[in-house]
């Protein structure tokens, strides 16, 4: 399993380890180089100083050893060693403490000796500097001694060596120190990395725990995006959006279940109670006839409900056939309006019809009739007495809109998003059993099949609001 924590740790610790190791090694080698350079510089100076004691006289090489310059070659503590060879390799002079050991060196120039590590007579590690040069000669000119390079006698090789044990000890101590500090830093870094990763990922752990605790009953909770680190704010924002959509969906589902339960259970309860009471307490024929008429009315109501539900289901699953033809809009609306005329008149509704008489639209007449029927019957049903119902039509870019509006009393802007929800009704008690809350659902599904869209707007007025249902169509 991919783990951010493990991934960060596996990258950071070896990375830090490599950086620290490289740094430590670099430091050590730098220090070693400096110390060795100092050692070599001192050796070079020594060799150059000794070289001044080597002179050429009458073609012969002579070494003038001065006691005060030779003490280093005799001492027991950190002794130095030298060897002088002629051009042909003959030993011209060497320090007594060399014994039988030869100081091997590939000589460099007077100013740039060749340095190399050597083994000293008692097995100690040493470092040698070798120079090749032409000894000077001292002649008298006008009674004064003058030093000049020897005209004859050739070059000599001088190798000076010194015990490097102390240098090595110093370097070892520095190495151990750097190593020890490095190990300590690695351990501290590993701890810091672990702590930093843990602390850094803590908000993610908290978020993860919160997400894991979300259930169907806690969808109203929201994550505190403001309190989150910047990297998690967008994640929290999205999660909150998702929760809001889930909550709405669950609420819609709960509403639907409750509404379906009411719409289906209540008429069945009515039918059952009527029948059971009539059977338990039989009365006269007139009472029986009343009971049977009521039962019939309930059966018809349930039949309508079932047929509407099935039709909505067919529309949603695409099994409702669409057959387009030219439909005279005004004539269709007149036919739909006819059965609504009496209820509208009884309520004293003011009706306005702004449909042009000659408009013909290309659509499925059955589906379009269903849409208009539901829009107009809803308008008449829910407009208050003395209110207004209107129907209009406008041409749009490449299409048209049919508008049905009515005055209404109880709808609020928050209700608009629910209007086409199956079984949604403003009256939570669902007292009026003639409307199940499926009309606009069916109208919306029929519109979708016809590639149209049904929208709702509410404009608020002083005493009454106006609901407008608009059917948007792409083509005439």
């Amino acid at each position, binding site marked *: 399993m991919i783990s951010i924590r493990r991934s960060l740790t596996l990258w950071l610790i070896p990375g830090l380890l490599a950086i620290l190791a490289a740094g430590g090694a670099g430091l050590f080698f730098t220090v070693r180089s400096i110390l060795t350079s100092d050692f070599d510089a001192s050796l070079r100076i020594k060799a150059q100083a000794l070289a001044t004691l080597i002179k050429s006289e009458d073609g012969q090489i002579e070494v003038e050893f001065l006691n005060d310059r030779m003490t280093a070659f005799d001492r027991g503590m950190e002794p130095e060693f030298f060897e002088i060879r002629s051009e042909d390799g003959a030993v011209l002079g060497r320090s007594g403490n060399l014994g039988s050991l030869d100081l091997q060196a590939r000589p460099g120039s007077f100013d740039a000796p060749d340095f190399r590590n050597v083994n000293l007579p008692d097995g100690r590690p040493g470092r040698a500097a070798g120079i090749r040069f032409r000894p000077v000669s001292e002649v008298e000119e006008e009674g004064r001694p003058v030093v000049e390079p020897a005209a004859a006698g050739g070059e000599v090789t001088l190798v000076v060596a010194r015990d490097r044990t102390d240098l090595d000890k110093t370097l070892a101590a520095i190495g151990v120190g750097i190593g020890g500090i490095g190990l300590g830093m690695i351990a501290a870094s590993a701890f810091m990395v672990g702590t930093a990763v843990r602390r850094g990922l803590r908000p993610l752990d908290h978020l993860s725990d919160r997400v894991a605790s979300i259930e169907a009953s806690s969808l109203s909770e929201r994550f505190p995006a403001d309190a989150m680190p910047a990297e998690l704010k967008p994640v929290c924002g999205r999660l909150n959006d998702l929760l809001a959509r889930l909550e709405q969906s669950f609420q819609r589902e709960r509403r639907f*279940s*409750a509404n379906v*339960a*009411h719409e289906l*259970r*209540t008429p*069945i*309860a*009515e*039918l*059952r*109670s*009527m029948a*059971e*009471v*009539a059977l*338990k*307490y039989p009365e006269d024929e007139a009472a029986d006839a009343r009971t049977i008429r*009521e039962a019939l009315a*309930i059966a018809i109501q349930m039949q309508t409900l079932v047929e509407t539900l099935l039709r909505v289901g067919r529309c949603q699953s695409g099994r409702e056939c669409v057959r387009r033809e030219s439909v005279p809009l005004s004539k269709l609306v007149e036919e739909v309006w006819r059965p609504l005329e009496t209820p509208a008149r009884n309520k004293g509704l003011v009706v306005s019809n702004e449909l042009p008489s000659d408009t013909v639209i290309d659509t499925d007449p059955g589906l379009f009739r269903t849409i208009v029927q539901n829009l107009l019957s809803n308008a008449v049903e829910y407009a208050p007495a003395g209110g207004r119902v209107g129907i209009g039509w406008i041409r749009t870019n490449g299409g048209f809109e049919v508008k049905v509006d009515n005055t209404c009393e109880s709808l609020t802007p928050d209700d608009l998003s629910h209007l086409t929800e199956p079984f949604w009704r403003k*009256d*939570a*008690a*669902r*007292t009026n*059993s003639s409307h199940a809350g499926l009309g606009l659902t069916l109208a919306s599904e029929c519109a979708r099949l016809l590639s149209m869209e049904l929208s709702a707007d509410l404009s608020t007025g002083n005493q009454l609001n106006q609901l407008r249902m608009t059917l948007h169509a792409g083509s005439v």
Partner: protein
Amino acid sequence: MRILFVEDSVRLRQSVGAGLKKAGHAVDSTGDGPEGLWYAESNEYDVIILDWMLPGMDGMEILGKLRDNGKQTPILFLTAKDTVDDRVEGLQSGADDYLVKPFAFEELLARVQTLARRGYGVRTARIAVADLVIDTASKTAARKGKPVDLTPREYKLLEYLAHRQGEVVTRTEIEERIYDEHAEPMSNVVDSTVCGLRRKIDRPGAASLLHTRRGLGYVLGEAKS
């Protein structure tokens, strides 16, 4: 028994209300939430049958207000809300019983009678007053094993007095229990019902069980010597 039935479905209100009346109960009914609350607060009922989804004020709110005001009347929720959460919510909010629509009328009747019995602290359908036994399930009475033929009004009165045996029941209480809001109780009807009941249960040779406390009311029980 006096029952309040609050249900917004007209058909259900009419059919169930008629059935409860035919079963011998006095029934007040309304389809409106606020009116239902007013009825419940203004009168004493043995049982209230309450729909949940009501216009104006839902059943849960009515229940809450009644319980907050100390009303202990047994309440049965009669509703289409059928989930476990709904039932739990209804019962935990103070309802005494919960019946989901559609329902069997006989079951509603039995549950209502059980709630009323419980309201009187009676656990069985049979109430004994000395050698007089009243069977509230079959709505019959018998003294020393012999059936007593009672009119519906006489039986209602006997059952109420039996639930309150040993207590003085006033005329007003009798009127409230025996008659629904549509009846016009007159004082002599209560007297004549009491008289008719006494004649049938207090037979010659048997100890008198129905006593008048002048100026106070009536009490059913064995006479205290």
